[in-house]
């Protein structure tokens, strides 16, 4: 299978601090939904942040369509078609829903095209159209998550990376959020999902990656990972004595 994005031997950490990632690998297949699972502190979010340029890749390389992303700024990486939705639902709470969508298309300089895209997205997600003049901070948690995911679609990105989209949401809302993710996948967007709720994440994914100890330990079709007894024991709650 050809690879859209490939991270090899990535070493990264925060500021001057110790390396959280110690040679992590990630292979991304076009058009698939990938789920990265692993215990707390394994470096799942760190890997995403290193890929989008928010953290410096100290060693190793990240290649996208054969081209290295190392040393690029987040805004430059975005322009190449890679969007990142961070854990804390990076919205602008005091800007309206529509202004938030407009910020999603900030890198588009053609105003009429941008307005068209906003219109299309609002058609696709009626709740956003309904609430367009409301401040984003007044939306419910689920709606905020939908807005921050929908916002990335304005750019018609190649890859969208979601960092724990289910965090702090009720189970019913979590399903809604995953359904939005499936809409995105149907449009041909490649998705990289980091999920604490590993069972749920893998069920909605095609491919699974297990990250632990700052390295990638397993990598395979999501179904295989779900059924592997060792992974069940270590990461899917099979073994109770150690967290």
């Amino acid at each position, binding site marked *: 299978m050809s690879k859209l994005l490939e991270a090899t031997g990535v070493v990264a950490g925060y500021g001057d601090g*110790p390396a*959280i990632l*110690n040679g992590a690998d990630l292979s991304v297949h076009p058009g698939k939904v990938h789920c990265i699972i692993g*215990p707390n*502190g394994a470096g799942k979010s760190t890997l995403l942040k290193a890929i989008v340029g928010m953290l410096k890749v100290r060693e190793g390389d990240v290649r996208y369509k054969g081209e290295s992303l190392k040393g690029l700024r987040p805004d430059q990486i975005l322009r190449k078609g890679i969007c990142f939705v961070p854990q804390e639902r990076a919205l602008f709470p005091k800007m309206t829903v529509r202004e938030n969508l407009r910020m999603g298309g900030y890198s588009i300089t053609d105003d009429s095209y941008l307005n068209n895209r906003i219109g299309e997205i609002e058609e696709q997600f009626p709740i956003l159209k309904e609430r367009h003049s409301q401040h984003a901070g007044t939306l419910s948690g689920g709606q905020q998550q939908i807005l921050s995911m929908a916002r990335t679609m304005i750019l018609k990105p190649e890859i969208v990376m979601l960092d724990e989209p289910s965090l702090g949401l009720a189970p019913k809302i979590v399903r809604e959020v995953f359904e939005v993710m499936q809409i995105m996948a149907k449009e041909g967007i490649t998705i990289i999902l980091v999920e604490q709720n590993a069972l749920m994440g893998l069920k909605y994914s095609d491919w699974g990656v297990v990250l*632990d*100890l*700052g390295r990638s*330990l*397993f*990598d*395979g079709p999501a179904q295989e990972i779900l059924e*592997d007894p*060792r992974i069940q*024991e*270590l990461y899917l709650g099979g*073994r109770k004595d*150690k967290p």
Partner: protein
Amino acid sequence: MAELATDEILAARERYNQSIAIAVNKKRSLWFPYLVLALLLVLPALQLIGNFNYVIHLTLFTACYVVMASGWNILGGFTGYISLGHNVFFAIGGYFAGMIFARLDISTIIIAPLAGLVAAVIGYCIGLVTLRVRGPSFIISSLALVMIFRIVFENWEFIGGAAGLALPVNDLPVQWAKLPYYYAFIVMAAIAVWVSYKIKHSKFGLGLRAISKDEIKAESSGINTRLYKVLAFAVSAFFVGMAGAVWGEYLTYIRPNIFLIILISVNMVLMCVLGGKGTIAGPVIGAILIIAFNELFVATLGASEINVLATGLIMMLTLIFFPLGIVGTLAKHGKLPQFLNWD
């Protein structure tokens, strides 16, 4: 898929977590500060062989700032609350002891601990209010505090208003006139450094440092952060107030524009920042360097405006290039000479 046994992974995770923790340098030497103290105690013997009043004055002046900077360090360095208004306590100590000295003729050296206590109580009360905010808010509130005290002191006739009060001069021969103050400041400096050390290595100090790292986590791990912060504020006010008490008598007058100028609090902050905030030796080294530098500057250039400019410049350069200060930066690179490691 990699072939790894589950137990191996768990063991590896343990090792991995340990590798992230940073090792601490435990080596320290305490003989050096004791040696310095001993030398300082016999220094006035120089007066027997000539006139070294200037040396005595400079040492005394430095010791005064060691008291203040070490005091400031307890709040600003350990706890991470930067106060730009600590000269308020310098003024409180100075005025309290000065007024008693002027009225009842009890030497400020005797009154000093009481003056420190008064400063600490006022500090405790102010801290109860201002320590409810953190970061920039706290810093700004401390600046506002100086402005408020300045206006109040300048308009309070009982304590002499803007003109201040003259204090009696002692009747010792010129050669020995500075000595009581000299020993007072040396002793206070030694106590301030020793108390800093004791606090840093106590449960209280550990709590303060936890607050500085992450106050919310400190609180959720059961530290009474509010009490700890306010106590740290009071202790630091105590030392600054004590220094102020004796300083007034040494100068022979008390006046708002001696105690309540911004340069005094800047010096406290700068000494700690330059030497190394949160370290024991840092404020001492900072005080020595800044006083030496000031003397050099005033002697060669004279103008106080240039002094302000230079002080600001040193502070900017230190913050940009050595944000951890001399001791902190050396320690981080493992190059701190052992005689400066008092922590």
